[in-house]
C-alpha cells in the first residue's frame, strides 16, 4: 500500500497509507485532509482537489491531461507542479509521494 504525505494549507503534515488503485483525492478525503473538498467526487469537473506535487515526484506523476488542464485554469495559484488529486491514481510506483494542498481561495 503506497504511503502518501499531504502538506495541508495550514502547514500540517498528514501521512497516510492508501489502497493502491484509488486516487490521491480519495486518500485525502478518507484522511480528512483540509483543503481537499472534492465537490464533484472525482469527475475532474470542479478543481477543488488542487495539489502541488513535490518536485522529486513530478516526473513519475506526469503532466495533467487536457480536461484537467482546463479545470486547473479555474483555480488560483497554478504552477508547473499543479495537478488535481482526483486524476492521480496511486500505485506502488508512487509509494512515498508528497504533495502540498493548495486549498480554498
Amino acid at each position: 500500500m503506497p504511503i502518501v504525505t499531504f502538506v495541508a494549507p495550514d502547514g500540517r503534515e498528514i501521512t497516510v497509507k492508501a489502497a493502491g488503485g484509488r486516487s490521491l483525492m480519495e486518500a485525502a478525503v478518507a484522511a480528512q485532509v483540509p483543503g481537499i473538498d472534492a465537490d464533484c467526487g472525482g469527475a475532474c469537473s470542479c478543481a477543488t482537489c488542487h495539489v502541488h506535487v513535490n518536485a522529486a515526484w513530478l516526473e513519475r506523476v506526469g503532466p495533467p491531461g487536457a480536461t484537467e488542464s482546463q479545470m486547473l485554469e479555474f483555480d488560483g495559484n497554478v504552477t508547473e507542479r499543479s495537478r488535481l488529486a482526483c486524476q492521480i491514481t496511486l500505485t506502488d510506483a508512487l509509494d512515498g509521494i508528497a504533495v502540498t494542498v493548495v486549498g480554498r481561495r
Partner: protein
Amino acid sequence: MLEDNAIRPPVQRVEGLDASLDRLIENLPEHLFGAPDDPVLEPGFSRDPFTPLAALRARAGAVVRRGEDGLYDGQSIFNVWGHDLSKPHFVALGYDAVNGIGTDAARFVNDEAYGAHLEAQGRTVNAYDGMDHVLRRRLFDRTMFGRAAMEEWCAQMTTPLAEYLVGRLKTRLEQGEEADLCRDIALPMAYKCISTIIGIPQEKFAHFVTLGEIAQSAPRDMNAAQQAVKELDAYFASELQARRQCPRHDMLTILDQEKERDWKMEEDEIIRHCRFLLPGGIETTWRQTANLGFAMMTHPDQYQAVVDDPSLVDQAVEEVLRWMPSGFVVPRKALVDAEVEGVHIPAGSFVCSIQGVANRDPKYWRNPNAFDIRREQHPHLTFHVGRHYCMGQHLARAIIRTSLRLWVQHLPAMRLAVPADSLTTRGLGVRCPAHVPVALAA
C-alpha cells in the same frame, strides 16, 4: 467573485421553526405524497422493478435495445424522460455499463438527453456539456452546493431544522399520536432547505411543492408542465427584481451578483435555474429521506444496531442510498457511435441508465437485494458519476445523515405503526413510499 459594489448579508439561521410550520405540515395535501409516475405504471412493476429488470439483465445483458415491438427483450419499461422513441432507445442495467456511460462525457452527452423535460423547462445546468457546463457547475458549487459552501448552510439551516422537526415528532409520539416520517420529517426537511437556499417563503409550502411537481411532469402531461413553468417564471422574475432592491443570502441574489471568470448568468437563466432547482432539489431529496425511514423501519434490528452504535450512521446511509435510491433513472444521448458492454449504440440514440437496478448488480454486491448496513462498501451510483455527478449530493447527505443521527439519539424506540409487509416503495423515475407511519414501541 463578488463584485465590489455588491452587498449580500451572510447565511442567516433558518426562520419559521414554530407553530406556523406545524400548521403547514398538518395541512399538506395528500396528493404531494407518493411517486409521481406510479399511476401510469403497471402496479406490479411499480412495486418491484428490481426483479423484472434484474431478470432482463440476466437474460439480455447489461445494455438492452428497445425492439420494434416497443419492448426491451419482452419487458415493458415506461419512457421516464419522454424521449422521442423514433430514435434508437436503450436501457443500461449493469454497474459497469452505467458507470462507463456516466464517465464517458466525450461520447455520452446531456445535450437533448432530458427529452420532454428539456422541452418544458428549457436548458439548465443539467443540459449543458463541456465548458458551458463547467462554468455553471463551478458557480453553483463554489457559492452554494459544494462541500465548503454547504457547511455554512448546514450549520445555519439543516441542523436546526432537523432538531426542530425531530423534537416535534418526539412530542407527538410521546403523546401517543400517530406520525408519518414522510409528512412530518422528509418533505418539510427538503422543502425548508431548498426554499431557504432559493429564497422562497415558508407560507407557500404546499403551493410551491405542487407547482414544482407539475413542472416536472412533462413526460406525462406537457400542457400542465408548461403552465406550471410559466407561473413559476413569473414569480421568480418578480422576486429577482425585489432582490435587486433588497439583497438576501439566497440563490436569487447570489446568481445575480456572482461571476465565474468573466461570465455572468443572464436574468432569464437565473429565473430558469431557480424554477428548475425548486422541484429538482426537493423531489429526490424528500423521497430519499422517506426511503431512509422505509429502510430503517422495515428493518428494526438494523435500526436498533444504529441506536446501539451511532458510529454506524454514515454506512447505514450509504446502504440506504444503494439499496433504495429515490432518483432511479438518468438519461444520456450518444453523440457518436459507441459500444458499451458489447452492445452497439448508434449516434443519436437515447440511453436510460437505471442506476437503481445497477446498484444491485451481483457482480459487485453479494446478495444484492438484501438491505445490510454492515455489508462491505462499494461505491454506489445513486448520485450518478462523471461530470454531472449530482450537484445536491452534499445537501442530500447532510439531510439524511442528520435525520438518522437525531432519530437514533432521540427516538430509539421508534417503530413502524403498521405491518412491514403492508408498506411498499413505488415508482420508476423517482421512487419512494407514500407514507411511513411510526409510533413508539410499547
